[in-house]
């Protein structure tokens, strides 16, 4: 078991918040990229054919 001592809550809170924020920006980046790629595909399909 990992030893956290009396500051367990503090450390877990810091890790929790950071992981949440990082996950948020990663998800946002990936989702926006997928959406942009799809939109562009559809538009290029229309323009070229």
């Amino acid at each position, binding site marked *: 078991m*990992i*030893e*956290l*001592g*009396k*500051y*367990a809550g*503090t*450390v877990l*809170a*810091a*890790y929790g*918040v*950071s992981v949440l*924020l*990082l996950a*948020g*920006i*990663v998800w*946002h*980046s*990936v989702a*926006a*990229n997928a959406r*942009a*790629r799809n*939109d*562009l595909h559809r*538009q*290029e399909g229309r*323009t070229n054919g």
Partner: protein
Amino acid sequence: MSIWEYANPVKFMRLSGAILPWVVVGAVLCTVGGVVWGFLTPLDYKQGATVKIVFLHVPAAMMAINIWVMMLVTSLIWLIRRHHVSALAAKAAAPVGAVMTLIALATGAIWGQPMWGSWWEWDPRLTSFLILFLFYVGYIALWSAIEDPDSAADLTGVLCLVGSVFALLSRYAVLFWNQGLHQGASLSVAPGERMSAVYRYPLYLSMLGFLLLFLALLLIRTRTEIRRRRLAALQAREIRG
């Protein structure tokens, strides 16, 4: 052929598409490795488990500043050499920088709670990061407020330039205003004593991880912006016939 050739959108898409998987793999390995390793480090004799927050706080704080510097450089490249990808890279980097600043602020505040006895202290460094966060927010808000992409790129570029000067100025003004309780150099725990290897290596790994993570996100987000711009351009051409 000069290095500027890579600023061409098509070439950028090809190159970034090729290196992106490697950067992503490296980012995941180093970030997860560094952060988990940091989480598993032994307790510090003085700070207890709170020392583990360093592995998030320091890399995030480092990236918060570096990303702004990178935005300043890409803005200058746009303003001087008119490379469109450069302007888009600055736009793409800003939200990542804001999140990094937020992580540095949150972990700093959480770390300070048991140390200082309150969730927020107007410590000069924390305050400087709060100000930096305000600059990020203003920059992002300006990008999203202007419809014409050329004007948006120019105006945010000018704002980034002026903002950089004032962010730096604020840093010194804040030092004057409050001398602070923050730890000195980030890489030493006790004053005058270097951080021991037990903490140093996971910290280096974590810093590398955050850097690669930023690079990966930057590439993804810049690609998103390029696709959006291309979509808008195609639509504009369709309308005009």
